[in-house]
């Protein structure tokens, strides 16, 4: 029988709507409006997990996104499971299941808990020191660490949910819907600013909504009463969009922010279906108002991590907001007045508050007096020195603090309790503020980092801006709003605020114990199990920079990024090293503020939209004809067309023989195509290609090589002169976009005087390449009235023709060395033309071939592929393509670099052919080449760039780059492989039809 700690129905929890859920396999009940944490606490469940390193039992510490301990796996074993979710943020629904993480076999009995007793052997840097040597042991250590640690389990099947992205442009973005955020949003919207108000919680009002301190009044009402009215008001304001369950994850430069809107996580499984689960909001705001509030700090004392030890503000929220008492015997431990509010909240509901331990000497505020009147024991100048209770807090021991706060005196008093509310003051939530690039300044009096230098149009209002009292908040908010919105009046001008003035604070970062530090466990980072001792050890070992201490001790490196303990870590470092906290600075707060799912990040870009690929107009034909595809850049290209279970090798050998023996057909649509027009088009080509273009006649084609300014080959392709001032350039498939970009760059920035216009037409035309000795006959069948004689239509020339109704640009050019035609038609006719060619070619056994065969055929001819035979370090001279470099032209891109001393060296790597002595051995592409076998070390002369078995030559052929290869014709070299050395001979890279007789066959 579980206990019920529900104390009073709250307006935020619907007691008529009972919900059952499972935690660690056991069924519990809660109400609509509960979080997993509040529902568990109502069932008196505090123990929810184990810590990461020592596997100490841990409970719920907070009521919000800063929770370090209550990290659960939601819906384990399903395809919707999610690890590392904070129980304080999970809204319960019928059928919810959750389980603890970091424990095996169960949270109640955890084998890793042994680490707790071994903890003297796990000091800071333990992993670095121990597992670094010997390196080969790492795998074993890793297995052990991963198995016993376990940071939750990722789903094993695909995510059933839909995710979405949305761009939002607004005048004012307000982050945080506490009192400051609500007032800011209201005034912005009323002044005609398009405003977006977001809050990570599902309810508006922040902490003020359950602020019932009777001594604080706004317009004579309690802050919570007053704020409820404001919340009703803003729901109907024009220009104001309100998004709850929306957490801002990142604040980038120029007021660009990313937020995650949670849409279905709080719904039952049946209601999640076909809905968008989470949406990533990409927000560009003209002005940003940060109203992110403050996080309560814990206090750092011995054994401050037991289940039942919570933030005082969380105890209050569970009581006031969820109607849940966190314990039957409550004690508070504080350094300021806020614990008294929490204590009174419980007291007023009839819950036992046994004592308040206050490290201050006294406080005279009204609320303290009220607590005294209630008869609650207050121990002034006392501190907790130890706690007991393994899976649940049992008692606290307290002692009197010395005047300087560094030691304890007197006798020890033990107070039995099951819940300890800890109040260490407030830390402004400046995480998003610093992400924006803005700078913080340490306030030595308030002991907080505060916004100091804003880099964009933004303000920080409320407690995140350092205002903690309601009168300060309203006054400063009013002025900041007027400044950023550039308005003269707001409706804050007339608000009357009364407050309980006294609020003293005594700050001690590390509270002393009667035991020495080495014997105690004051946790600073709960999630990563970092104690004050670890931080001091790091300092003793010489670490000084806060960033180094962080990495060495792992403090602040958990999924919570140390939201609770970072300030204490800094304080302890400052105290120990004797420096001011302001000088120490902070560690960097990085996005996301709270973890994001992968689904949210990728949005709709999943499945076939993950990496979108481009298909040619003939793609369907290739698919129907069982082509295998290869990815070339973003393109899907037909690779080869296996028949009757052929291997790739068999298919390629067959296709290659057919293309040279009769007729082959290739889809070349992916080649880049740039339309070049303008009266200076010829001059432009002269400047970008290495060869001369002015004299190219209309209707003629020319191969061009394009260099980078450093003289290295950048791209190549055939360009055709269509008219006096009109060319069409082809580029490599992969280079198309970059070539256009490069040409535009020169045109706009270096040669703006040239009258030239460039247009990418790659997608506008489909290209079918017809090749082989029968290609002419096939084309003749398709276009009977076109004179295909060598006189009328010679190699490297162009004709415009019609095939039926289809207008067609035909270039007689060849990348295989065979008589061939490239036919370009409007993309939408591409498949039609292709099918016509196949039909007309049937009698010649026309054979479709893919990219692999194309590569083989061109290698037989010694034609290079830029990017395969070149790698950005090859000049045209290195490629033995001197013939294409004009000596006459005064200048072209890269020309000067060809005359640099380095590019003129004779011993550069140069392109050569390689023949294996055994013609059946095919070299591996990338294999290294040497001239000596019995020498060590031996110089690598170069490597194989292309290698095939040529069915037409019936032997293995290869292209390679070899140091000084140009002068090595006929020389014997070696390709050493793992099990054998292959003897090769340097050869002319043109293996097939050296005299180009086939072109006109």
């Amino acid at each position: 029988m579980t206990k019920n700690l529900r104390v009073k129905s709250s307006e935020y929890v619907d007691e008529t709507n009972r919900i059952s859920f499972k935690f660690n396999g056991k069924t519990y009940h809660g109400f609509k409006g509960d979080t997993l944490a509040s529902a568990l606490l109502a069932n008196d469940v505090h123990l929810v997990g184990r810590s990461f390193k020592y596997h100490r039992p841990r409970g719920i510490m907070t009521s919000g996104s800063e929770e370090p301990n209550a990290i659960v796996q939601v819906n384990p074993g399903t395809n919707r499971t999610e690890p590392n979710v904070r129980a304080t943020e999970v809204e319960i629904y019928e059928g919810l299941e959750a389980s603890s993480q970091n424990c095996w076999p169960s949270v109640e009995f955890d084998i890793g808990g042994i680490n707790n007793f071994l903890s003297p052997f796990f000091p800071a840097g333990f992993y670095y020191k121990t597992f670094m040597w010997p390196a080969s042991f790492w795998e074993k250590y890793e297995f052990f660490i991963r198995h016993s640690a376990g940071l939750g389990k990722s789903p094993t099947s695909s995510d059933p949910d839909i995710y979405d992205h949305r761009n939002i442009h607004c005048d004012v973005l307000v982050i945080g819907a506490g009192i400051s955020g609500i007032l800011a949003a209201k005034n912005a919207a009323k002044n005609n600013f398009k405003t977006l108000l977001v809050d990570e919680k599902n309810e508006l009002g922040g902490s003020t909504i359950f602020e019932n301190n009777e001594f604080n009044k706004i317009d004579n009402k309690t802050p919570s009463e007053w704020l409820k009215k404001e919340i009703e008001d803003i729901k109907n304001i024009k220009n104001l969009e309100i998004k709850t369950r929306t957490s801002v994850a990142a604040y980038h430069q120029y007021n660009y922010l990313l937020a995650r809107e949670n849409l279905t996580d709080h719904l039952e499984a049946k209601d999640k279906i076909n809905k968008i689960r989470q949406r990533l909001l990409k927000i560009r705001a003209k002005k940003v108002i940060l109203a992110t509030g403050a996080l309560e700090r814990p206090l750092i004392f011995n054994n401050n991590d037991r289940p039942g030890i919570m933030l005082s503000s969380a105890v209050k929220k569970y009581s006031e907001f969820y109607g849940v008492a966190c314990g039957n015997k409550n004690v508070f431990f504080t350094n300021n007045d806020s614990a008294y509010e929490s204590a009174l909240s419980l007291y007023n509901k009839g819950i036992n508050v046994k004592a308040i331990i206050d490290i201050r000497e006294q406080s005279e505020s009204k609320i303290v007096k009220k607590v005294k009147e209630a008869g609650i024991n207050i121990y002034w100048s006392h501190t907790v020195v130890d706690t007991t209770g393994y899976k649940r807090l049992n008692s606290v021991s307290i002692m009197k603090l010395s005047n300087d706060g560094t030691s304890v005196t007197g006798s020890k008093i033990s107070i039995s309790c099951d819940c300890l509310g800890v109040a260490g003051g407030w830390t402004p939530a400046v995480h998003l503020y610093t992400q924006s690039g803005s700078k913080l300044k340490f306030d030595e009096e308030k002991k907080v980092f505060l916004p100091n230098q804003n880099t964009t149009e933004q303000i920080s209002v409320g407690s995140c801006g350092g205002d903690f009292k309601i009168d300060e908040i309203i006054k400063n908010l009013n002025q900041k709003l007027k400044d950023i919105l550039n308005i003269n009046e707001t409706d804050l001008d007339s608000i009357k605020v009364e407050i309980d003035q006294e609020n003293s604070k005594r700050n001690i970062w590390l509270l002393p114990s009667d035991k020495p530090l080495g014997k105690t466990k004051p946790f600073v980072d709960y999630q990563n199990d970092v104690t004050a001792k670890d931080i001091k050890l790091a300092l003793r070992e010489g670490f000084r920079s806060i960033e180094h201490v962080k990495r060495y001790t792992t403090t602040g490196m958990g999924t919570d990024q140390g939201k609770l303990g970072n300030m204490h870590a800094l304080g302890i470092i400052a105290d120990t090293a004797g420096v001011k906290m302001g000088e120490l600075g902070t560690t960097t707060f990085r996005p996301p503020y709270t973890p994001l799912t992968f689904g949210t990040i990728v949005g709709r870009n999943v499945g076939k939209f993950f990496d979108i690929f481009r298909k040619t107009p003939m793609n369907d034909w290739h698919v129907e004809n069982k082509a295998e595809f290869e990815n070339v850049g973003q393109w899907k290209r037909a690779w080869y067309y296996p028949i009757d279970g052929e291997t790739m090798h068999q298919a390629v050998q067959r296709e290659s023989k057919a293309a040279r023996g009769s007729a082959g057909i290739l889809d070349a649509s992916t080649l880049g195509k740039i339309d070049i027009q303008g009266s200076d088009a010829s001059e432009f080509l002269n400047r970008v290609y290495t060869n001369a273009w002015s004299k190219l006649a209309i209707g003629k084609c020319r191969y061009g090589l394009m260099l980078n300014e450093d003289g290295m080959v950048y791209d190549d392709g055939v360009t055709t002169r269509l008219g006096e001032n009109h060319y069409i350039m082809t580029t490599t498939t992969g280079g198309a976009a970059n070539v256009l970009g490069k040409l535009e760059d020169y045109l706009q920035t270096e040669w703006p005087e040239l009258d030239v216009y460039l247009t990418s037409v790659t997608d506008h035309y489909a290209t079918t390449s017809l090749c082989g000795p029968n290609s002419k006959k096939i084309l003749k069948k398709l276009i009977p009235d076109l004179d295909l004689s060598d006189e009328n239509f010679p190699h490297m020339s162009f004709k415009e023709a019609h095939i039926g109704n289809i207008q067609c640009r035909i270039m007689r050019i060849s990348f295989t060395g065979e008589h061939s035609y490239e036919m370009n038609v409007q993309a939408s006719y591409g498949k039609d033309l292709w099918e016509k060619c196949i039909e007309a070619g049937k009698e010649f056994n026309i054979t479709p071939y893919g990219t692999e065969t194309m590569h083989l055929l061109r290698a037989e001819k010694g034609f290079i592929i830029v990017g395969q035979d070149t790698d950005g370090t090859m000049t045209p001279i290195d490629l033995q393509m001197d013939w294409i470099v004009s000596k006459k032209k005064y200048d072209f891109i890269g020309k000067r670099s060809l005359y640099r001393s380095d590019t003129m060296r004779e011993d550069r790597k140069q392109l050569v052919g390689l023949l294996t002595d055994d013609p059946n051995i095919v070299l591996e592409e990338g294999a290294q080449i040497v001239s000596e076998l019995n020498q060590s070390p031996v110089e690598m002369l170069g490597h194989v760039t292309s290698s095939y078995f040529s069915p037409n030559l019936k032997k293995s052929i290869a292209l390679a780059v070899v140091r000084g290869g140009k002068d090595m014709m006929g020389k014997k070299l070696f390709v050493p492989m793992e099990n054998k050395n292959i003897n090769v001979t340097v050869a002319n890279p043109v293996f097939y039809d050296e005299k180009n007789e086939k072109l006109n066959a």
Partner: protein
Amino acid sequence: MFLINCPYCGERDQQEFKAGGEAHIERPKQPTELSDDEWAEYLFMRKNIKGVQFERWNHAHGCRKWFNMVRDTSNDEIKAIYKMGEKPPTQ
């Protein structure tokens, strides 16, 4: 993520743009007259300042126009944007 004011299109998100390195490095009109060292100076040497830097940017996924930007690399503040061929603003 910068918000860049393309001189031809207006304010657009940084992801539409491509950075193109240091600005105001003119391609020599007569490269063949230059010594190896002088050519290497043009070809390879670029400043990488922490502070105010003059840069080329291209609205690659927009109007495809190149333009110049003055940017403080220490805080990414864009101080000025002007068209190609225009004189850089004086400090």
